[in-house]
């Protein structure tokens, strides 16, 4: 070939970072970043709203502080996030003391008392600490903001986030996680309800040896648009990332979007990364978009892989269960629950794993399975 085409390097990383909303151009629904989004429900977050309140965080050891007292290292990467950061006045802060070991999960409940609210939550896990944090957010309003997680050197932190709510609600949430040397982060995100939900989960490593496991389950039903964008920025050597998201689309009009971007920089030798998204479409007229991207700037890695699949019910599985007398609805529910079991099985905390399973079962219209009490 004589005609060489110069392809500009694709860079999955955000181009602009700023606390100033004016630094960002207002997005349109044609932008790559927003074309899969519930744009009409989320564009409200591109305009500052003085009447909006704050998301309130309650939990043992959680303090609501004036935003100016919060030493956050995270810088917004898009307009909505910058507006939230500029307009939020109070932040919920949980500091996990260095070297402390917490056997019991720390439960944080997020609530709002206004129809619109800005959110800023900071979770800082001190060096060598070991804790599980459960964030429960039952959406009742329009929320824009961030939950910023910092995992110190050698710390082990699990954050289980459960988002529920009715279809009139909207949530644009930044979920940046920063990992120190040899830090171990497990993020389990369950989206059970909510109207327009857009979550951007960005993982950065500030030193070698970090591990990030990101597990997610989501149920999308009529009137719901669940969007998850994951960005793992491998720019330190010998770090790991393991991403597994599973979603089910229950009825006509249900919508889900999963974008998984993994960037392995030149300096990130010894990287071990894997990401997978599987969706189960249970109805005609539901749509699931799934886009895994992997960009490698070095070949000197342990392994890198990604997979994505969106499928319908396996009729043979349903037939097999039915042929044993199990009614169709129960058979389908068993198959869906089984579909989620793989990812839920990786949530280490058994109490909250069961809690999630119960919530999912409930959403599928079953209070309890016959075999559950074994």
């Amino acid at each position, binding site marked *: 070939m004589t005609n060489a085409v110069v392809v500009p390097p694709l860079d999955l990383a955000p181009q602009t970072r700023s606390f100033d909303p004016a630094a960002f151009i207002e997005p349109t629904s044609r932008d790559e970043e927003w074309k899969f989004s519930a744009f009409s429900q989320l564009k409200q977050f591109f305009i500052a709203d003085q009447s909006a309140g704050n998301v309130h965080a309650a939990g043992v050891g959680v303090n609501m502080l004036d935003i100016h007292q919060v030493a956050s290292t995270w810088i917004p990467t898009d307009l909505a996030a910058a507006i939230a950061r500029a307009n939020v006045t109070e932040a919920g802060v949980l500091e996990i003391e260095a070297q402390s070991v917490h056997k019991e999960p720390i439960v944080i409940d997020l609530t709002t008392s206004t129809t619109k609210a800005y959110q800023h939550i900071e979770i800082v896990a001190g060096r060598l600490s070991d804790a599980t944090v459960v964030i429960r957010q039952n959406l009742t309003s329009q929320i824009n903001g961030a939950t910023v997680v910092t995992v110190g050197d050698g710390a082990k932190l699990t954050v289980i986030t459960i988002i529920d709510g009715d279809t009139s609600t909207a949530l644009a949430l930044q979920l940046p996680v920063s990992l120190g040397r040899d830090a171990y982060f497990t993020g389990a995100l369950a989206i059970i309800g909510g109207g327009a939900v857009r979550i951007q989960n960005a993982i950065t490593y500030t030193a070698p040896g970090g591990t990030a496991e990101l597990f997610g389950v989501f149920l999308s039903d009529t009137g719901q648009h669940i969007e998850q964008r994951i960005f793992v920025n491998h720019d330190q050597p010998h770090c790991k990332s393991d991403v597994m998201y599973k979603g089910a689309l229950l009825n006509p009009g249900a919508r889900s979007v999963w974008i998984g971007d993994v960037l392995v920089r030149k300096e990130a030798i010894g990287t071990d990364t894997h990401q997978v998204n599987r969706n189960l479409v249970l109805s005609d007229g539901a749509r699931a978009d799934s886009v895994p991207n992997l960009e490698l700037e070095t070949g000197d890695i342990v392994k890198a892989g990604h997979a994505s699949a969106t499928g319908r019910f396996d009729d043979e599985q349903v*037939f097999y269960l039915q042929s044993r007398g199990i009614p169709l609805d129960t058979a389908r529910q068993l198959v869906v629950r089984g*579909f989620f079991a793989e990812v839920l099985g990786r949530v280490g905390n058994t109490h909250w794993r069961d809690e999630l399973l119960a919530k999912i079962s409930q959403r599928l219209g079953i209070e309890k399975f016959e075999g559950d009490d*074994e």
Partner: protein
Amino acid sequence: MSSLLITDLYAQVETDQGPKDILKGVTLKIESGRTYAIMGPNGSGKSTLAYVIAGHPRYTVTSGTITLDGVDVLSMSVDERARAGLFLAMQYPVEVPGVSVANFLRTAVTAVRGEAPKLRLWIKEMKEAMAAIQMDSSFAERNLNEGFSGGEKKRLEILQLALLRPKIAVLDETDSGLDVDALRVVSEGVNRFRDETGAGTLLITHYTRILRYIKPDVVHVFADGRIVETGGAELAEILESEGYERFTTVKS
């Protein structure tokens, strides 16, 4: 006493070239306490017959009837047939990830018996049934058929037979893929089920091997979508020595 009556049954499957007739006038009676064998060459439609009895959605019945004790089976859903007392041990049991054997069995038993068994009694019952077919109780915690060997899958089918206690059991190629030891265990399971419940049993098989362990009262030869010859256990011996050639070469 129960009887499953199949009368002049025709069924077809949808293919890329349009509908294809598989069953071409099957008439068959299965009664309680008796054991029947359907033997036939590959592709004769004998597995289709099993699936049509169970109600697999892939097949369409175009004419004929199936009744269980006089009640129309063809109008029943798949699960209704099972609750009415029909059971199909499948040639290729399906893997269902994330659903444990214990959860599946209890859900199925609850559906078929119409009430949930008392938990303590149930665990005892399940463990005894597993021991009877030499299946380790750790299988209860495993995902349904997932990663099971061929023999393990077949044992699980027979375990279900023992727990669900159908009136009429259809065993589709239950002997295929089994070594001699596994074949003996599975056959003993079937005989025990038959002796304890007095159910009617239909064995569908290509080989006579399993008939050494499970004695049939009646042997039907199946070819080109229908029963072409009927006899006693001695017919199996003839097929063993002569093969199916005379049934496959002569076609109407």
